[in-house]
């Protein structure tokens, strides 16, 4: 399901799927902060990819690969903190 990553020294990153890169012009910065979160119960969870670690392997994960299963998605401030 999830593809294994060939890990080098660069730090891999993920991001939302199917979303265009945000514009970085300074005039738009204030506007951007007012954009409402896309999150709403009863609505689709935004798809994303992210690099991850599981069972001794570095893998790349896409949320939509988990369709058909229940998913608990947890964010936390940093490793070595509690959950």
């Amino acid at each position, binding site marked *: 399901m999830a593809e294994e990553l060939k890990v080098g020294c660069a730090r891999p*990153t993920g991001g939302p799927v199917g979303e265009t890169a945000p514009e970085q012009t300074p005039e738009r910065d204030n506007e951007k902060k007012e954009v409402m979160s896309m999150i709403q119960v009863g609505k689709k969870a935004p*798809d994303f990819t992210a690099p991850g*670690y599981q069972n001794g392997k570095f893998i790349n994960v896409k949320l939509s690969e988990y*369709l058909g*299963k229940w*998913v608990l*998605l*947890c*964010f936390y401030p940093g490793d*070595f903190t509690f959950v």
Partner: protein
Amino acid sequence: MFVHKMWNDHELSKMVDGGVPFVMLSDAGGRVGKVYGVYDEDAGVETRGRFIIDPDGIIQGYEVLTPPVGRNVNETLRQVQAFQLVRESKGTEATPSGWRPGKMTLKPGPELVGNVWKEWKTEMAFD
């Protein structure tokens, strides 16, 4: 991601036999957290956001806490069990306040309107 490995191999595996059984993801720069509304740009960290996503990819519930307070895992599992029950019943059953697995459910319908008090007692919310 590399730090996930260090954390898992050197600390978490001492708490859980065999280490963490699920995938630990990395969100450097908070790009995913921003979309989910849980990234604190000023502090540069993710807050404690938790999302329950059903097999159709629909968000059924979420909870977001600031970093100093930890979550109640039992409550999260209870909510997942409740959503699974509702889904298996195809919406014919609902889990009232205080529901836990094994406790009574409600069958929403015209005859239930105004009659919840006969089936559900206030103390059921608290145990």
